[in-house]
């Protein structure tokens, strides 16, 4: 419904803005979106990033591959946030809809299943939202990870914390799901290597709604810092209950949850909570091509009426990277495009991008760094500021 209306608007915009040079052929990119099911919120955000890129590219005459201009079209289906449909749908996308390139579904689990099909047919798939490293260690040749892998998620937070207080007692409290667990394990190893103090290490079931017991445990362990969380609902609850139960922590970094604007609804409970993010609208990377983060944010806001989060930014970046690779290769031949992608080392509004060419972990993202954002009170209103890394920060750390 909404998508149809937007498509019409996009179509109209394309015709209105079409320059003299018209596109000759079409390039089909396929992917699945979680229109229904638990992942739908973030998956749709990601799709909007794709769409914005597509419409801008087409408005500029399409992708220029060695003289031929290609208009980009998408073919996408609902994967219901479930593995079961993903293989069937990707097979359809490749075999019936004849997509030449692929974007990934949303979430590591679905991407792993799609990867088997994409690898089978030798199609390039740029993955967004897939931070789980296991996916890239299975012997692939055509996967390219746009996001930072899971073990990088809290690395920045740990460094920032160490800088502030190397004697902080850390409690790891994280959701028992593939993503959060992977992040927690990697971070724990880093913390141990850095000789930081571990007060508590607990995972909670995804169905947990009451974090009172765990928070009591955190208080018992006399922790001063907390790292972990999972996705929105649990992260928001933890933040709220930490505040209500006066846990008195000096440093709290939660995954994913504090990154959405909705987190501001928690009011006082949100102050001081930091979140690692793949991207924030305020970052000041200088891109080699494509718009700056600020320009992207403005365009996205104008088109969809809301601020883009990193899901949308990641989607947009995937499009940019694919376009860049095709244009550099001068053709849409997958072999040539893979070659270019394997050697790429560029900066876009999303950050630096460089893929691993090591056969055992092909496609793993090496260049991108996570930023750390924190909710602070500015003139009485809650805003999110970037506090780490120092190159991209907009405010000082609140401890």
């Amino acid at each position: 419904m909404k998508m149809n209306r937007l498509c019409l608007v996009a179509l109209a915009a394309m015709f209105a803005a079409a320059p003299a040079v018209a596109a000759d052929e079409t390039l089909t990119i396929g992917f699945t979106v979680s229109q229904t099911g638990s992942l739908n919120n973030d998956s749709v955000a990601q799709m909007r990033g794709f769409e914005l890129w597509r419409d801008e590219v087409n408005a500029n005459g399409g992708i220029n591959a060695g003289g031929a201009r290609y208009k980009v079209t998408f073919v996408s289906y609902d994967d219901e946030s479930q593995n079961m449909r993903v293989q069937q749908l990707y097979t359809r996308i490749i075999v019936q809809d004849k997509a030449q390139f692929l974007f990934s579904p949303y979430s590591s689990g679905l991407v792993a299943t799609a990867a088997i099909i994409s690898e089978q047919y030798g199609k390039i798939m740029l993955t967004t939202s897939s931070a789980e490293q296991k996916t890239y260690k299975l012997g692939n040749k055509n996967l390219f990870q746009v996001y930072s892998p899971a073990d990088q998620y809290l690395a920045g937070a740990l460094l920032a914390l160490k800088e502030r207080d190397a004697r902080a007692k850390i409690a790891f409290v994280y959701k028992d799901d593939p993503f959060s667990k992977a992040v927690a394990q990697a971070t724990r190893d880093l913390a141990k290597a850095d000789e930081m103090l571990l007060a508590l290490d607990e995972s909670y079931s995804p169905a947990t709604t009451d974090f009172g017991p765990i928070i009591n445990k955190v208080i018992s362990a006399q922790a001063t810092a907390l790292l972990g969380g999972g996705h929105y609902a649990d992260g928001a609850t933890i933040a709220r209950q930490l505040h209500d139960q006066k846990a008195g922590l000096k440093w709290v970094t939660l995954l994913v949850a504090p990154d959405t604007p909705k987190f501001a609804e928690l009011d006082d409970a949100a102050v001081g909570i930091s979140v690692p993010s793949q991207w924030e609208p305020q970052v000041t990377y200088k891109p080699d091509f494509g718009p700056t983060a600020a320009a992207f944010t403005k365009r996205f806001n104008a088109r969809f009426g809301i601020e883009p989060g990193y899901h949308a930014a990641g989607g947009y970046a995937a499009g940019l990277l694919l376009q860049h690779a095709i244009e550099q290769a001068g053709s849409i031949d997958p072999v040539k495009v893979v070659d270019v992608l394997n050697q790429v080392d560029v900066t876009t509004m999303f950050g630096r991008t460089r893929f691993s060419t090591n056969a055992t972990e092909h496609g793993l993202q090496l260049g991108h760094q996570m930023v750390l954002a924190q909710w602070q009170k500015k003139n009485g209103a809650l805003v999110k500021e970037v506090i780490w890394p120092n190159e991209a920060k907009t405010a000082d750390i609140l401890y």
Partner: protein
Amino acid sequence: MIGIAASVADGVLVGAVYGLAAMGLTLIWGVMNVINLAHGAIIVFGMFGLYFLAAALGVPAYAAIPGVIVLGFVAGVALYWIAVHRVIGQAELMSLLSTFAVNMVLIGLGTALFSTSPYNIPVSLPGLTWEGYTFTGTHIVAATIAAAIAGLLYLLLHRTRVGKAIRAVAGNRGAAELCGIPTRRVLAMAFGLGVALAAVSGTLIATLFPFTILSGEAYQLKSFVVTVLGGLGNPAGALLGGIALGLVEGLMTPFMPVSWTSVVEFALFVIVLIGYPRGIFAFSRS
């Protein structure tokens, strides 16, 4: 030691709300031998009810409760006539499936309307602090309201004519009919009551935690465990069962990783079902 006491106390508070959630389920089950698999969906709609009344219309959080009770009752009666009435006498499988179908429809509509985004209602109340552990005001109020509603339910069932009629139909429908009780109407009201209880428990839960359209499932499962602990058809047992479950959760958390709690809960569930099918708190049917 203090940590354990705090954990247990907190568990009991939340347990009272679990108990309230289960009361609706057990009432319907006891009166008409129907397991309402739409229970979770109704809890979620109770949560959304609070969201719309409180956040959108500006009604103070706890004042929305009577509104939700009335709406829940009406919805329950409607549901009875739509989905349950025809399958009452038949094999249990049928009512299981019909209520499940209702569940699918409700969740499907909910997802289409609200998507799976999380919603939150900020309710802040001063709590009690003791030795470094705080019992949030919202937990205390929620437990109190749950207990109050349970008390009201007891009064309804035992001190009013309607309550008597419900208990009569629960005991022996045929005999009740012979006594001139309009059993179909009574069944509809009992169902409405059960749904209203589920909805209001959702409202209370919404004051404690954020929720999404899919949150109901977890509470439905907990309600099953509580219902079995307390004995089917026994609302007082349900409250006690809920508190017991909260207690068990509170006792377990200091000693084992929290992720094992659910395994223990379900193991408990199956054991109680096999060993004590009438429930651990089986008083004579009230």
